[in-house]
C-alpha cells in the first residue's frame, strides 16, 4: 500500500484536497438550503449518499422546492447524469475488472474523479488516483451535507450568507471549459435564453429541459470528447 501511495505525487494529492474542500462547501450549502427550504434532513442526506452527483441533486431538489413535480425532478436529474455514461467507459480500466471493484467503484464516478484519472496515463497510477479521489470525495461530500443539513435546521436565512449563489457559481466554473467549443457555446447560450424566457410560464424543472432545443446549434464533432467534456478540465 505504501508503494501505491508513493505513485501519487504531492501535487495530485494537494489538488484532490482542494477539490474536496470546494465540494465540501457546496455540499454544506446543499444540506442547508434544502433543509431550511422545508425538506426533512433525511432527504438531502439520502440523495447525497445514493445519488452522489451534486448537479443532479441541486437540480432535482430545486425543482421540488420550487413546487415542481417529483417526476420532473427525476427527469432533470437523470438527463444531467447521462454524462456519467461516457465517463464510465473512459475510466473503466481504473475502476477495475472484478465485480467487487466494479460495483462500489462505479458509484465513485464523478466529474472530479474522472478529471483527475484522465490526467494519469499508467494504469496503476490511474487506479490509485481514481480510488483516492473517489473515496475522499464521497467522504467529504456526505459529511458536509450532514453538517449543512444540521445547520439548516437552525438557520433561518441561508440567503444572507449568499449560499444560494454557491450552486450556480460552481456549475459555471465546471461548464466554462466546455464552452470553448464554438458549436457547444452557441447551443448552450441559446438553451440558457430559452430556459430563462420560459421560466415565468412553465412549471419548475421544465424550462431547463426545454433548453435542450439549443442543441440544434451544437453542430458536428469538431474536437475530441476530451476537449469538449466539461469534467475533463475541472478546476
Amino acid at each position: 500500500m505504501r508503494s501505491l501511495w508513493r505513485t501519487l505525487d504531492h501535487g495530485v494529492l494537494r489538488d484532490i484536497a482542494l477539490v474536496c474542500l470546494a465540494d465540501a462547501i457546496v455540499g454544506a450549502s446543499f444540506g442547508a438550503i434544502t433543509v431550511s427550504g422545508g425538506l426533512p434532513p433525511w432527504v438531502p442526506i439520502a440523495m447525497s449518499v445514493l445519488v452522489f452527483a451534486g448537479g443532479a441533486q441541486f437540480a432535482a431538489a430545486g425543482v421540488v422546492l420550487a413546487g415542481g413535480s417529483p417526476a420532473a425532478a427525476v427527469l432533470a436529474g437523470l438527463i444531467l447524469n447521462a454524462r456519467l455514461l461516457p465517463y464510465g467507459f473512459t475510466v473503466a480500466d481504473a475502476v477495475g475488472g472484478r465485480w467487487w471493484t466494479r460495483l462500489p467503484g462505479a458509484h465513485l464516478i464523478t466529474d472530479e474523479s474522472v478529471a483527475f484519472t484522465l490526467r494519469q496515463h499508467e494504469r496503476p497510477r490511474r487506479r490509485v488516483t481514481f480510488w483516492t479521489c473517489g473515496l475522499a470525495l464521497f467522504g467529504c461530500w456526505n459529511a458536509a451535507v450532514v453538517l449543512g443539513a444540521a445547520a439548516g435546521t437552525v438557520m433561518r436565512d441561508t440567503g444572507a450568507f449568499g449560499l444560494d449563489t454557491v450552486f450556480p457559481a460552481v456549475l459555471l466554473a465546471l461548464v466554462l471549459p466546455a464552452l470553448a467549443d464554438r458549436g457547444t457555446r452557441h447551443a448552450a447560450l441559446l438553451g440558457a435564453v430559452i430556459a430563462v424566457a420560459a421560466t415565468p410560464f412553465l412549471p419548475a424543472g421544465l424550462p431547463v429541459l426545454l433548453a435542450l432545443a439549443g442543441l440544434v446549434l451544437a453542430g458536428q464533432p469538431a474536437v475530441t470528447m476530451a476537449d469538449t467534456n466539461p469534467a475533463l478540465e475541472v478546476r
Partner: protein
Amino acid sequence: MPLLAIAALAAGTYAFRLAGPVFRNRLRIPGRVQHLLSAATAVLLTALVATAALTQGHGFTGWARPAGVLVGGALAARRTPFPVVVVAAAATTAALRLSGIP
C-alpha cells in the same frame, strides 16, 4: 421529495455509471453520440446556471445572486482555485444583500 423519486434518480444514475465498467469490452459509443452527450451536458449545465442565477420561482431573483455568480465565473476563467471561486461568489452576494440590494 418522496423516497420513491430519490430511489428512481439513484437507480438511474447508478445504471449510467455501471454501464461503462461492465460493457467496456463489448460495445463502443459512436463519436457522434459522444459529442451530442457532452454538448447536451454543457447545454443543461448552462441553462441551470442561468435559471439558478437569475430566477426565483417564476420571477427575477434580484441582482445580488447574479452578481456573485459573475464574480465566481470571472475568477474561474482566470483558473483561480475552486474553493476561492466558491467563497468569493457567496461573499459577493452576502455583501450586496447586507448593503440592501436583494
